[in-house]
């Protein structure tokens, strides 16, 4: 049965950072919008079924601690024992529906799409800038492409994902997005 399409909302959506982008001699910092984020908590005893459901739905293996797995437009991120976050292109309507269908009762889902500001930091100076606020070792030997970790930068919780060698996705709480943006911008300025 075809899903009923939700009518277009007349309430205007506002992104946490108003679509901020800035350039720093070849390195860019830009707010990412249009992605949905869903948390998945694996139901006790359903670990194998969950992994099978994930494999079936997206052709990926459940990532080990500290890593994410990606295929096409989706990325599944390990965030805690038994907990993952799925990042995907925002679907029409409730983002939980397609995920719910995919995991078919093996995990408990919560929509987190509006919980974070998402910033993408890309370019040759990205790692130098992060060195000023990020306590993690971002050397490729310890934080390879697709590595993901939760950490704290300037008192703010951050979910950090290495998308490519010099491309990072940073998720931090929506309410403090401006403070977080300033922390990253200051780091870029200070290391220029």
């Amino acid at each position, binding site marked *: 049965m075809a899903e009923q399409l*939700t*009518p*277009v*909302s*007349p*309430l*205007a*959506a*506002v*992104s*946490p950072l108003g679509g901020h982008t800035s350039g720093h001699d070849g390195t860019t910092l830009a707010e990412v919008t249009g992605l949905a984020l869903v*948390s998945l*908590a694996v*139901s*006790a*005893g359903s670990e194998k079924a969950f992994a099978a459901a994930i494999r079936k739905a997206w052709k990926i293996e459940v990532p080990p601690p500290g890593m994410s797995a990606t295929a096409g437009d989706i990325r599944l991120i390990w965030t805690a024992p*038994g*907990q993952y976050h799925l990042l995907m292109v925002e679907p029409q309507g*409730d983002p939980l529906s397609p995920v719910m269908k995919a995991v078919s009762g093996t995990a*408990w889902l*919560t*929509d*987190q*799409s*509006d*919980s*974070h500001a998402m910033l993408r930091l890309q370019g040759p100076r990205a790692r130098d800038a992060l*060195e*000023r*606020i*990020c*306590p*993690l*070792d971002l*050397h490729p*030997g*310890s934080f390879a492409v697709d590595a993901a970790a939760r950490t704290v930068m*300037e*008192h*703010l919780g951050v979910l950090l994902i290495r998308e490519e060698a010099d491309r990072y996705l940073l998720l931090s*709480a*929506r*309410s*403090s997005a*401006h*403070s*977080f943006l*300033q*922390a990253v911008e*200051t*780091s870029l*300025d*200070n290391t*220029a």
Partner: protein
Amino acid sequence: MSFRSPASIKTGLIDRDTSLAFSFNGRQMTGHAGDTLASALIANGVKLVGRSFKYHRPRGIFTAGSEEPNALVTLRAGAHSEPNTRATVAELFDGLVARSQNHRGPLHFDLLAVNDLLSPFLTAGFYYKTFMWPKSFWEKLYEPVIRSAAGLGRLSGAEDPDSYDKGFLHCDILVIGAGPAGLSAALQAARSGARVILADEDFLPGGRLNAETYEVSGMPGYRWAAETIAELRSMETVRLMTRTTVYGAYDHGVYGALEKKTDHLASADGKPRQVLWRIYSKQAILCAGATERPIAFANNDRPGIMLAGSTRTYANRFAALAGKRVTIFTNNDDGWRTATDMVDAGAQIAAIIDNREIAPLVAPAGAAIVMGGAISDTGGRLALKSVTLSNGQTIETDCLAVSGGWNPNVHLTCHQRGRPQWNAAINAFVPGGELPVGMRVAGSASGALTLAACLAQGHKAASEAAKALGFTPSRSRPAPASDEASANSAFWHVGNSKKRAWVDLQNDVTTKDIKLSHREGFRSVEHLKRYTTMGMATDQGKTANILGLAIMAEASGKSIPETGTTIFRPPYTPVAIGALAGRSRGSEFRPTRLTTSHQWAKEHGAIFVEAGMWLRAQWYPKVGETHWRESVDREALAVRRSVGICDVTTLGKIDVQGKDAARFLDALYTNTFSTLPVGKVRYGLMLREDGMVYDDGTTARFGENHFVMTTTTANAVLVFRRMEFARQCLFPEMDVHLISATEQWAQFAVAGPNSRKLLERVVGREHDISNEGFPFMACGEVTVCGGTRARLFRISFSGELAYEIAVPARYGDALVRRLMEAGREFDVTPYGTEALNVLRIEKGHATANELNGQTTALNLGLEKMVSKKKDCIGRVMAGREALIDDDAVRLVGFRPVNPQDSLVSGAHFIARGDAAVTENDQGWMTSVCYSPHLETMIGLGFIRRGNERIGETVIAADPLRGSTCEVEIVSPHFIDQQGERLRG
């Protein structure tokens, strides 16, 4: 007169083609790129650079490194001025302005030098003994006068205009110090494949290789250093950090380091001046070198008296002569090397005085040799003119190079309370006992004071460290070099003089002070340090401590190791407070959290209040309102009259899911949630393990296995953390999962008799929100404004008919605007946290003021909420005898007998006629407000047996703020006691 050696005889490691202009006390001079301020001053013939701490004695440059006790200057001007900078580590730049410190009048004629004449009185403990009475004079008179007369530089008093930053670094092997041992270690570690950080406090790595004339690998040491540096720089796995002092060794291989980024530039150009690094290392090799120590003898503090190794540094590295006619006083072979180097740089040697009997090396031609000799006095007021030997002979000289041997820089090995051990072969303390985890020590820092040994030890330590980390050590050999002559003797001071011999130049501590302190009963070195101030201030006694210990040991008839050392603590060298603060200044001290209606509230002139990191609208003043109470009263009345809107996004929201979610909540809350029907909300109370109330809030059931809990704003994180603890540790068998949804939803309270009418205009028509269809304490998923997903809760904090409506955060801004628009007909009023507080006090709801960690459910009148049918965290402890006493305080309301009287929270209740003393205390007022509804102030508070005393009059006394008034005990529900409004 220039004291710079001509390039033809000594090139030095300076760039003679680049001249830099600088000034000292207004005198314009020039130096070269590669100079320190100290080397440039020496090259310009400046001897006098400052006045001593206590006696205002003329002082000159004493060392060539970070151990400098004398040459403290103020760099730069105005708000940028930086006092107490060691000239010996200040890198020269064009336009540098430096001033001397601690004198009244010009440096060469300091009026406070009168203190020196009073010196017989100003011995150790003088202040403590003298300024005893009257007691009050110490703070008001004595201390300010003493402080202004004694001391170091002064701060500008202006805000620091520079910025600072912090950062995090990671490596396999951290090498601390880039002298021969450090370079050798870093090279071997990097060649073995490890990720290496090599940090050195100097701007030119190489350490003593740049200061001495030895050869390494068949080339001058400084050249080998430069070539090694070049190789290290070319390796991707090496991070070379110059101008970086590793100042502290912390737990588990974490080191603190301060990198000076722009101190050597005329302007920071908006960039951070210094960066404070936290370095995570797996292994560390300490190659911090050694510090030369002086010998104490009468008047050993005159400008022109310098450590021998430092005169070599100035001569060899900077081509700057500390004197033209140099005398050497030594107890070891190093002194002799000084003679050769100084002659090579163009100086003349007046004499070599060695306390030992047999000359170890050949002296340069023309130098008088005095074996078994000692210096008994010196002459020259503002600069050294002569020295007098014990045999009475006087020698004319303008520089006295003193060497008392070398102390390994063991400091970082002791930062975790390690105690160094005495090594009699070099008469010095060496690292001993337990070192910080992962630390090795190599080179002079370990007591290996000769070149070949340093190179070999660095290499060996790096191989061992690499191996420990699973690397295969490179098969390369340490760079070859010879070991120089290094015999030494234990000779600390020239005794039996009536004149003062300085031990600690920075704090003006003399051999007499040490002996006096011993005579007065100070036996521990730590006490000696406090009593005499030896080893305090910016140099932390780097050149002084061992001398003081030796003299104390002698006085007490003990050995030096028996006497022991004072504890070494971070930082190794001074760190500016600004660097420790980093970016955490002003409005960036902490991050700010904003609600989704923040922009809208700002547009409407809201006054904001900080609630944790949140900024919340406190009230919305309207044109013409001059007092905050006018706005708050209006907002509160508007809610009770029609409808108001308040952003309640800041309350914690926790998504609880799982097959055991209901069971889990039963264990957490005092009341039962497993019986809560889907589509309903219940107020819940959580206890601490000790039975006190922890937090309260409402929890809504959206599905059989899905609850949404709200917490107070203040406890959002704490409650979540506690629930995670319960989930992971107390109930690991339960299938229950938690995630914060605070940020996901923008939530607004819509409160007042017209709230339903307002909501009917935005909530989709397919949702029945009539009183029957959506009664008090209902909840459900709805849509608003033609399709936006929303959650609706019928809950009330104000006592009115009220709802809370939540939409995904992205729609929060649009929703508040839409609600205001839809509510225009009802004169909808936005209200802030103050009106929210008034409304909840009028209704008698508890908040953080009442849930302060000292109150139980019984105290709060909520004892019926503690279910007896099931267990919950804190239930047993809540039943403790003292907590269920009939005499317990109860939450009740209070009204002033005279409606005009003001109430204050924090006031204590006493019976009428009783004195306002602790014994008569019956309870306290927790919350007060002006109730525009009742047109009087009202309060909530706890009073003994309050529930049985309604109608009684007591005194609310606040002796602290001088207010006392009569209050009547009333029900805490000031409005609508039957709760008809919120159910209507």
